[in-house]
């Protein structure tokens, strides 16, 4: 089974849809679009089975030599190991489910073929990103997913604001991308290679912990990761990216693309380990982001925006885990998060479609009975997001991060407290969302009930986001380490501070209590006494609008960067340099005019000129 087939299939699907998509019968389009990803998922399963059964550590396939100039010799080559296997599994499976869901969701849209073409292209790019064996190819995938994200956010292109959101997403992530590019340049300068394995090998040989180059490089790579994963300070694009169709938000802006930053750091963990300060920064960024985005999520009206901020917040958890060197915990949370967040977005999409594209949660309500499948699956997803103890996957993955943020040798109490605070907010906004949408009285009539093509992916994802958690159980009960063992050859396991080892149950208890109390608070404010939440809102109106606007980052960047740039380029529209040449022309014209004045046609003037010339000549001769 060739590894190449996995990214190649979606690419082929995309190619077919772009070239002949408009001529295909409508039934064929999802068949090609979802089918290619489905086959790719199947191939992943087979490959994964062989990979595990043969207990390989890695698998390399070189398609062709991309370029080769004086040591810079990246190939179009793929590298499969445990880490990328987890990622391609999530990408192809969640991707496939979302394709299936989209087949119904997008069916009335004019750009049906275009949608699947972009989506397939995205899957291909994302697979390239995680399978790349060198950083240049990874960069290719990195930009490719950025492009698809741009295309899909702006999918409904007739709306001006969608186009704006799409461009914002592309440009903001591009800021991160160029930082990553600097990292690549510096890596190449240092090691004369951009092959990931070779870099890892050479780094261990040449660097010592705290090396300055390692510090700079990891900081730059972190810049790339922050941009793509919508972490502070480049998080502003993600909430706006919700302008795209819901399946897009599910696939790209929740499950896969936004976690590319997590992948990058995990993939380059060898480099990061030589720069503990940067790891610390990763942790700080993660912690700050998760709290910040949590508060922002608390105040949103738009259902998808809540989920967007929640995604930012959950990726913050992953960064926090990376920051404390809990590599496999981060990847574990990535996987579970991919399941439940995709589920939540898809369910939200179903709700929004059912209500005539109504995004405002306060205009929803009482959908519990109208959309039972959506309700129950949403409930499972919400439970997982809020880390409802014991029965949800989210509990196990998040709990691991909470515990390790304190107990890892890089962890500290502040990380833990932030994470705990984040957990509380998470469960509050999650259940706020649930209660507002599905409980209470019906504000908007349901116009459309999702069919099986939409329900099945929801159910499958609901199962996955519950069951998925049970493959990695904490020490205190079960002590199952399938996932981390699987990743162990690639990502070293975390070292726990010895004196804390015995307190894990306590942390878990606290986390569970916090999650439950969050649910309780949400119930209290939005079901039991809804008027209290209104009062709270009006009593802190400033804070509310501040959080609603995502802590004012948009405004800040707008004032600080966008407006000056637009202003500068607009005042110079006519190109100031050209004025210089215009000046030259003006001088030439002026001289010309002056000289033509002398040709007055009056003979005496000419004679005068001759006389003056004669005088001057004689004077010169005399001198």
């Amino acid at each position, binding site marked *: 089974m060739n590894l190449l087939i996995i990214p190649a299939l979606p690419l082929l699907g995309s190619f077919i849809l772009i070239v002949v998509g408009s001529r295909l019968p409508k039934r064929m389009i999802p068949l090609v679009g979802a089918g290619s990803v489905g086959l790719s998922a199947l191939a992943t399963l087979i490959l994964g089975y062989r990979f595990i059964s043969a207990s390989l550590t890695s698998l390399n396939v070189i398609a062709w030599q991309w370029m080769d100039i004086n040591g810079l010799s990246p190939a179009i080559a793929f590298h499969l190991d445990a880490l990328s296997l987890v990622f391609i599994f999530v990408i192809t499976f969640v991707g496939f489910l979302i394709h299936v869901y989209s087949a119904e969701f997008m069916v009335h849209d004019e750009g049906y073929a275009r949608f699947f073409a972009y989506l397939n292209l995205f899957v291909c790019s994302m697979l390239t990103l995680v399978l790349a064996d060198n950083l240049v190819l990874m960069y290719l995938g990195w930009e490719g997913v950025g492009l698809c994200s741009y295309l899909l956010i702006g999918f409904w292109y007739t709306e001006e604001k969608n186009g704006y959101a799409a461009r914002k997403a592309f440009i903001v992530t591009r800021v991160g991308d160029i930082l990553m590019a600097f990292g690549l340049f510096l890596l190449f300068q240092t090691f004369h290679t951009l092959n990931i394995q070779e870099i890892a090998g050479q780094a261990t040989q040449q660097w010592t912990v705290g090396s300055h180059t390692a510090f700079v490089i990891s900081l730059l790579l972190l810049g790339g990761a922050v941009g793509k994963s919508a972490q502070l300070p480049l998080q502003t694009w993600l909430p706006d990216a919700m302008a795209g169709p819901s399946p897009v938000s599910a696939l790209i802006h929740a499950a896969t693309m936004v976690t590319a930053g997590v992948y990058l750091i995990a993939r380059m963990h060898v480099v990061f380990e030589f720069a503990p300060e940067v790891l610390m920064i990763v942790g700080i960024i993660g912690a700050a982001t998760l709290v910040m985005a949590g508060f922002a999520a608390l105040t949103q009206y738009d259902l998808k925006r809540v989920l967007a901020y929640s995604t930012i917040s959950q990726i913050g958890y992953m960064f926090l885990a990376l920051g404390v060197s809990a590599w496999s915990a981060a990847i574990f949370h990535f996987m579970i998060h991919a399941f439940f967040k995709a589920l939540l977005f898809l369910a939200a999409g179903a709700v929004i479609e059912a209500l005539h594209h109504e995004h405002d949660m306060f205009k929803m309500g009482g959908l519990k009975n109208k959309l039972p499948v959506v309700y129950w699956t949403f409930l499972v997803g919400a439970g997982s997001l809020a880390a409802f103890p014991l029965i949800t996957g989210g509990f196990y993955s998040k709990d691991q991060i909470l515990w390790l943020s304190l107990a890892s040798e890089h962890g500290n109490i502040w990380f833990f407290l932030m994470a705990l605070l984040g957990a509380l907010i998470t469960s509050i906004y999650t259940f706020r969302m649930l209660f507002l949408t599905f409980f209470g009285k019906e504000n908007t009539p349901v116009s459309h009930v999702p069919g099986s093509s939409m329900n099945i992916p929801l159910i499958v994802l609901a199962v996955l986001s519950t069951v998925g958690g049970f493959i990695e159980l904490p020490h205190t009960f079960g002590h199952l380490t399938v996932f981390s063992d699987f990743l162990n050859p690639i990502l070293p396991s975390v070292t726990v501070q010895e004196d804390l080892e015995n307190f894990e149950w306590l942390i878990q208890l606290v986390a569970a209590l916090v999650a439950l109390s969050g649910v309780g608070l949400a119930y209290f404010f939005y079901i039991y006494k809804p008027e209290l939440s209104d009062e709270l809102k009006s009593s802190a109106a400033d804070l509310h609008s501040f959080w609603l606007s995502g802590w004012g980052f948009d405004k800040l960047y707008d004032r600080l960067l966008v407006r000056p740039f637009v202003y500068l380029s607009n005042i110079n529209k006519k190109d100031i340099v050209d004025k210089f040449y215009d000046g030259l022309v003006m001088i030439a014209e002026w001289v010309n005019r002056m000289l033509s004045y002398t040709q007055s046609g009056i003979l005496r003037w000419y004679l*005068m000129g001759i*006389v*003056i010339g*004669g*005088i001057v000549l*004689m*004077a010169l001769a*005399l001198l």
Partner: protein
Amino acid sequence: MQVAFYIAALVAVISTIMVITRFNIIHALLYLVVSFMAMAVVFFILGAPFAAALEVIVYAGAIVVLIIFVIMMLNQKEEAVTQEKKWLTPMVYVGPAILSALMMGELVYIIYVGESHAVGQHVVDVKELGKTLYGPYILAVELGGMLLMAGIVGAYHLGRQKKKVIHRFLKEKED
């Protein structure tokens, strides 16, 4: 003899000044004749009798007469004189006067830096002149002849009374 030179020079200068300041052109021409006569005297004193004769004949005779004929043809009347008066204002002659003064100064300086020579002791007679003219300068004489020929033809062509002919470019503009 020196006295004769100075007197002739004085007459020449004064009459020339009168020429350039007259408003009536006929008066000016009369002064011009006087000036040429005085010049002829100077030539004679300088030992060039043939030149003096030519001066009288050609300049004072032919050229002045020619100009007078033209003036008669143009039929200049009283208004021409008033016109002249209007034209000759200080604004017009201050600038040229300054320039001329400058040039005069330069010329005087040039003349006086050179050595002093006495001239006019010997007469260069017509025979010698003829020999030179038809000897080394024969080519120039022929060219002079052609120049005169061209002058005649040109004068005839230009002076012919003909219908007002306008160049085709100008004609277009007029339409």
